[in-house]
């Protein structure tokens, strides 16, 4: 069986039963579902939650919704066939290994594509029938929070290549949504169409294997098909099938729960947002394009996947970004050990990097390579004895190995993230580099430790129940 959302849910149900929760009681897509997730978060609990009876935008119950799929790194370890304990640097490296080995998708016919079990087209489309989640108080409407596929046009910079990336989509009417695009690949594709006054075909992919979305959150070169990248991440070809309304060469994932097809309309802008973003702030209302929905394809008894954005569920989707940073640093510093983008900085703004320092200047090379990935505002480089997945250890290294005048630098005017609340209109930010490594070739005071032989001799369980 091809990898998909349901196969993965069964896997985590078996592997981490304590991290999997099913909710049978009826709950509303408007704020109620997120209130339950927030209560769990307040107790520092981040299980994958399968809501079995969610009311849609018309108030009709019985819809299945999954959230918190990405809320733990253990889940993501399982998604790449690692033991759940291998969620630290091993996870980053396994994902990186997989993206170095892309796999071309497999095209299947409609009769082999479960997503084509139900096709709703044209005037029959009504997205109010879906349990689109309304997340936070100031959100302008219910929002889709999953990834969309666009395809570079024949006259574009990468003709025929499918691009997958995350974009928020605001409910507007039964067959219309708004969309926000940062000026990256999808925006360039859309602009290519808009300059010719043509609508830009897109497909929203709701409910697939987690690695589909980790791939969507990477930033490969425009000429790289993210379907190939996803195939690498899955370890098998992504099964795709021709779209229902966007042409037979526009391919959509055959094993998704839902694929919603539509067109971003040219030369139309309308108020979109506020929306609670991954930064944990509301992005402001702005003039943004609109999408006309043309078709909904879905499996039988489909499961609607939602990212509880601005919470752990989006923090650890930063794994895709983490691998992008890992790749760039590894090219600059071959003795790189690990990279971590912690949830304390929304999984996107800070990076901790562990290297084996072999020559002077390497920590700065590592940091500069990391900063070529645009969102980072702080990079801390540490030695091998520091566990970068334990923030206390990282900041202990900063506290005890750093003299600011020598080991802290500020770089100004780097392209940043438009969603950063502190950034200016030119979307340039400043970044701090902290070299928290010990000096090379000089004596340095040693970390304290209880003798190993006594640690081995004295067992906790022999003294304390």
């Amino acid at each position, binding site marked *: 069986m091809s990898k998909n959302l349901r196969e993965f849910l069964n896997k985590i149900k078996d592997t981490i039963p304590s991290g999997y929760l099913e909710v049978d009681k009826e709950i509303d897509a408007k704020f109620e579902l997120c209130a339950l997730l927030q209560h769990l978060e307040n107790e520092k609990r981040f299980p994958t939650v399968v809501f079995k009876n969610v009311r849609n935008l018309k108030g009709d119950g019985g819809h299945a919704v999954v959230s918190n799929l990405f809320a733990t790194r253990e889940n993501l370890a399982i998604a790449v066939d690692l033991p759940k304990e291998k969620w630290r640097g091993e996870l980053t490296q396994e994902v990186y290994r997989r993206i170095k080995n892309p796999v071309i998708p497999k095209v299947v016919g409609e009769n082999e594509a479960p997503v084509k079990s139900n096709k709703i087209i044209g005037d029959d489309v009504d997205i109010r029938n879906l349990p689109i989640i309304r997340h936070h108080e100031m959100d302008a409407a219910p929002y889709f929070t999953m990834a969309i596929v666009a395809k570079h046009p024949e006259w574009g910079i990468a003709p025929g290549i499918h691009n997958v990336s995350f974009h928020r989509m605001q409910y507007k009417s039964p067959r219309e949504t708004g969309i926000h695009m940062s000026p990256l690949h999808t925006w360039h594709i859309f602009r290519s169409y808009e300059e010719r006054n043509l609508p830009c075909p897109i497909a929203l992919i709701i409910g697939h294997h987690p690695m589909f979305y980790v791939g969507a959150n990477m930033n490969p070169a425009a000429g790289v098909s993210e379907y190939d990248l996803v195939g690498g991440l899955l370890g098998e070809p992504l099964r795709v099938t021709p779209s229902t309304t966007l042409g037979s060469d526009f391919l959509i994932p055959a094993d998704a729960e839902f694929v919603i097809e539509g067109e971003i309309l040219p030369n139309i*802008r*309308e*108020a979109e947002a506020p929306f609670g973003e991954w930064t944990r702030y509301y*992005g*402001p*209302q*702005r*003039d943004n394009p609109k999408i006309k929905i043309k078709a909904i394809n879905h499996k039988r008894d489909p499961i609607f996947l939602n990212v509880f954005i601005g919470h752990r569920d989006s923090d650890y989707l930063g794994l895709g970004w983490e691998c992008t940073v890992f790749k760039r640093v590894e090219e600059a510093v071959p003795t790189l050990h690990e990279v971590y983008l912690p949830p304390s900085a929304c999984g996107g703004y800070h990076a901790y990097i562990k290297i084996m320092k072999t020559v002077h200047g390497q920590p700065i090379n590592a940091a500069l390579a990391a900063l070529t990935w645009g969102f980072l505002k702080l990079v801390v480089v540490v030695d091998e004895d520091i566990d970068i997945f334990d923030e206390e250890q990282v900041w202990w290294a900063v506290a005890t190995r750093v003299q600011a005048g020598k080991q802290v630098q500020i770089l100004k005017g780097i392209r940043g993230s438009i969603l950063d609340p*502190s950034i200016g*209109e030119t979307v340039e930010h400043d970044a701090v580099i902290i070299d928290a490594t010990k000096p090379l070739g000089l004596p340095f005071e040693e970390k304290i430790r209880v003798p190993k032989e006594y640690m081995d001799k004295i067992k906790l369980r022999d003294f304390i129940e």
Partner: protein
Amino acid sequence: MADIVYIICPNCHKQFYAESIMRKTSSKFHCPYCDLYFFEKETTNKGRDSDVKEPKRIP
């Protein structure tokens, strides 16, 4: 993030914020609380640029 301004809905009088550049376009604002679409001239905002950005006014 671009420069933002707080907007007060003329219908429900709740506040939200928008990019200030929206004031220079012909777009309507959209109240996230009561779903009203409205033009800037319909809002009850006064001195939005200077006054409404004050954090203490956030509900």
